[in-house]
């Protein structure tokens, strides 16, 4: 029991990557941004396992790409964003490269995120 309590105590100081799993509604700011019209809300779906994530676009073809979560940022070949807000109200601010377009700025809000699990 003491050993287990020691492990749990030691683990309190460990920081895990910010949770970004789930569906995201994306606001592209300027209406009619190149290619953004092809996306339906929720425009992003993210599946995360620690520092690795898979981002899927709701573009009818379910285009997906692998990303890395590092501290407060999430980056991929065609995607970069900073992560802000608490786990329950997380926000992504960044740029997305859509097919045939340059980088498009966006702000994304996560839908129905849960509270911290296992408190």
């Amino acid at each position, binding site marked *: 029991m003491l*050993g*287990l309590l020691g492990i749990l105590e030691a683990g309190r100081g460990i920081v895990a990557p910010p949770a970004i799993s789930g569906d995201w509604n994306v606001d592209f700011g300027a209406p009619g941004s190149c290619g953004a019209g092809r996306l339906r809300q929720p425009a992003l779906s993210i599946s995360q396992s620690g520092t690795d994530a898979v981002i899927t676009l709701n573009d009818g073809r379910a285009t997906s790409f692998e990303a890395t979560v590092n501290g407060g940022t999430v980056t991929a070949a065609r995607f970069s964003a900073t992560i802000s807000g608490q786990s329950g109200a997380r926000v992504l601010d960044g740029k997305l490269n859509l097919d045939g377009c340059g980088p498009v700025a966006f702000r994304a809000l996560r839908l129905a995120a849960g509270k911290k699990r296992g408190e």
Partner: protein
Amino acid sequence: MLNLFQLVLQIAVILVAARVVGYLFQKIHQPQVMGEMVAGILLGPSLLGWLAPGVSAALFPASSLGYLNALSQVGLVVFMFVVGLALNPSELHGYGHAAVLTSHVSIVAPFCLGGLTALYLYPRLSDDAVTFTGFALFMGAAMSITAFPVLARILTERGLVRSRMGTLAIACAAVDDVTGWCILAYIVVLVRVTNASRPAWITIAGSLVYVLLMLFVVKRFLPAFERSFARRGKLSDNLVAVVVVLVLASALATEWLGIHLLFGAFLMGAIMPKSQEFTRYLLHKFESVTVVLLLPLFFAFTGLRTRIGVGGGHSIWLYSLIVIAVAITGKLGGSMLAARLAGTPWREAASLGILMNTRGLMELVILNIGLDIGVISPVMFSIMVLMALVTTFMTTPLLEWVYPHRLLKAQVEERQENVA
């Protein structure tokens, strides 16, 4: 909307794959259930989805998996009742110091090692939506489970059930399973309570009331089934239906309380009367459909969620090796050393450790619960499934190597002579 043609086709494909791979595994002296678990993985993205993504998407579209999951959950409810029914904690009596020490160490050692591993894996494979406590406790519980049903099947297939080691392994596995499920129930409550709108005290007090009701009220009425069986040599269809309704009611109660419906089914089985004929009759009644039809659906559903070698980069293989090494060290090593310390000869102690290291199906049940409640990530789930497969697969060949069949046969014969 339910596509009946697709669902029936899925079931047929799953059953054929389960029987074929199960048969092939039997040919290499593995338990059938091991082959069925592998068949489930092969039907998922790890093989079929990788080799023929078009076929996989047509056969198992994401929208159809809800029905498959529902059927497999019904199968698991019945299966957990069967597991509880087969458990007999009184089997621990009479095996003294060795059984008590081995069963306790075989939980504590892997549990603590699982917690230690969590220190390394939490920042790499989890996220801040899960607390370290929840993650570490789950890792500990998942590492310390023993697959009681698979263990019993391996012992039966090798004619070990009546050996001293076999009975000791069964007794320890029974204690491990009960303890493991209690720990898991605590973790599920811990995780769900923080997400639920219902106050925590309702879950905690309700669970306590539920357990007391089951142990001191419901249990008192259950011998009526046994008496009816003793009078007629069987249970009427109406009484079998009552048993099923009781199992479902107990499962619903625990689900409503926020634990999980499998706990209710397990407890209902655990408190049923334990006379040998009655238990055997009920097992026969419930096991066939569950084992042949519904469990393969659960294996397939698990396989469809498992992505071995898909995504996560090369580091996943390193994490998998670490998890497998820790699981084997904690369970096999811990049980073996404890049995040796209790005076069991080295060969028997090693065999006991190997048997206790069998995680099999029970591990998959626990992992699916962990993934459902979000305490482990999809990649962590796949790593743990791989660990469950490896630790189950290695049991039979390792056992044959450490304790060859001829030695076991001689021991059983010697024991029978002593009894005579």
